[in-house]
């Protein structure tokens, strides 16, 4: 059992605040992804859980034990580093065995675990080699095997796939998911890649400027962004935002369309819709087509709506031309509203 609780953790580097009062609980065996742009504090948060960084304030609990004053080796964690950190002076076998040797496990047990994890990661034929003789993907496998061999309660991963080429990344992603689910560890995984986050996570914590903006399941984060940032960061292309002005009896005017929306005493709020949640034709937002990008399964159309950029994903059969005036009808149940001042969802 290793539930992780992060309570009121803040981190300041000199005058710069990297993390503001972060609270997050990760359930036992949960796969939690910290997602955010570079500099949002996700790696700092991971390093605080690992013990490589000390929080300026707040507490970290792992498995019901307060650990923020403990060195990394007493926290029952294993970690996979962004640059793998496979020791160049040790063979693959000794790299995987490193943590086990530190624990002074008997040789027989060390061999058993190294062989088991090497097999799991398909690197059993590389055990005698050195890091310098491995490809990036193989080093990645060694780094994961080294973490798994510890049979830890918690595995921390810091952008482990970011140095791999696209194809390998896809392959490793699927493999990691399977291996980690089978190992029954609690995982915190840091990435800036939203596709990686969506595909791996049980839950995603979206971070922005040192705060967790939303932590929810991938689908929830995608469908119901808690803040404007989440909608604009997740999704490719991201969510569209259009200013909405107050009309009669609680409805809102959006680009010539009158929609019923949330109650608000503000004169202007923001309307938001995902690119795939509009249909061409009928009654809809007035849009002028600027760019058409056929992508195979569908067509990405970039338009002008109310003087702002609007992206719509249309059926690849849709016959649109640059310069066309379109009507884009938003699916009513997919419309979201945001407060322009707090940027929170309404």
């Amino acid at each position, binding site marked *: 059992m290793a539930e992780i609780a992060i309570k009121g953790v803040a981190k300041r580097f000199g005058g710069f605040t990297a993390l503001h009062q972060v609270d997050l609980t990760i359930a036992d065996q949960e796969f939690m992804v910290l997602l955010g742009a570079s500099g949002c504090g996700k790696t700092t948060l991971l390093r605080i859980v690992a013990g490589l960084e000390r929080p300026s304030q707040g507490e970290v609990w792992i498995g019901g034990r307060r650990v923020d004053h403990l060195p990394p080796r007493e926290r029952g964690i294993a970690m996979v580093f962004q640059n793998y950190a496979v020791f160049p002076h040790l063979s693959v076998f000794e790299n995987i065995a490193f943590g086990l040797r*530190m624990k002074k496990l008997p040789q027989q047990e060390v061999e058993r675990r190294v062989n088991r994890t090497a097999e799991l990661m398909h690197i059993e034929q590389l055990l005698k080699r050195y890091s310098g003789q491995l490809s990036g993907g193989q080093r990645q496998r060694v780094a994961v095997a080294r973490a798994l061999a510890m049979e830890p309660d918690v595995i921390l991963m810091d952008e482990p796939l970011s140095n791999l080429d696209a194809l390998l990344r896809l392959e490793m992603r699927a493999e990691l998911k399977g291996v980690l689910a089978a190992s029954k560890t609690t995982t915190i995984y840091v990435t800036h890649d939203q596709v990686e986050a969506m595909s791996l996570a049980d839950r995603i914590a979206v971070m922005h400027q040192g705060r967790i903006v939303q932590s929810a399941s991938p689908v929830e984060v995608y469908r119901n962004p808690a803040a404007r940032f989440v909608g604009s960061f997740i999704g490719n292309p991201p969510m569209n935002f259009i200013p909405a002005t107050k009309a009669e009896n609680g409805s809102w005017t959006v680009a010539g369309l009158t929609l019923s929306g949330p109650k608000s005493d503000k004169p202007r709020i923001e309307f938001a819709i995902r690119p795939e949640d509009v249909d061409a034709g009928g009654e809809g937002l007035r849009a002028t087509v600027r760019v058409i990008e056929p992508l195979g399964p569908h067509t990405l159309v970039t338009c002008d709506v109310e003087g702002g950029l609007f992206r719509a994903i249309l059926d690849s059969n849709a016959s649109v031309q640059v310069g066309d005036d379109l009507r884009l009808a938003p699916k009513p149940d997919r419309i979201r509203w945001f407060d322009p001042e707090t940027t929170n969802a309404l």
Partner: protein
Amino acid sequence: MHGKALPYLLLMPATLFLCIFFLYPFALVAFEAVTRDGAFTFDNFRTMAGSWKFPVTVRNTLLLAAIVVPIQLTMALLMASVVSRLETGRSAALYVFAIPLGISDLAAGLIWLAIFDQSGFLNTLLSSLGVVDRPVMFLGYQSKLTIFIAVALAEIWRATAIMMVILVAGMGLIPKEYYEAAEVFGASPWQRFVRITLPLLRPSLQTAIILRVILAFEVFAVVAALGGTNLPVLMGETYNWQFTLQDRNVAAASALLILAISIGFTLFFLRVLRVPKEARI
């Protein structure tokens, strides 16, 4: 001009310089060492080895190297670890540590002479504290051990910094991630030093040790200043043969012996601290 020839052309002057002013005189010395009056002979080596001072000089030189170099290595590693970990004032600390590097070995010997001399700082201090009632002869001909200790101290003081500078540079090349990985996987600070720093520092250790060992066998000025003839060393004997006894051939033989010892130790450390090609960073 062809690009391929350019580097060789650029290296030509330095190579020529070394050939004329190093290889040629070296060949002359080697020739002198194995000839006497134009005839090939090993007599020069026999004369050298037959001198009553010879075993003493060899013993002193080896003993000095065997004591000074390990102490310097330990201190340099310690200092380099501390300096590498500094976040501010790192270069200031390096400069301070490196001050003795700017002093010639004779000057270093004289500084320590000023400390240990009969009217030196140490005697002044001891008598003003009332520990002794008259100055002590630290470096007299009867106190060989004190001379030896003084020479060792002066050598350690003078030449530890060069090792430290090399090691600091080497430590800077070890990526921080290795330490973090070792820390996460359970290594204590000492285990990180032994299992990560030392093995990954091998190329720098090699350079530092070889450089220091060679210099240790060439120790001369510091010994001359502090011990005079009371602590004969190989280099001092070579000087004696050349200038006091006016025998160039035996002096050449003696110089060749120092060279042979240096080469021997260099090869030894190259071998022992070799990093296999596949295990390099």
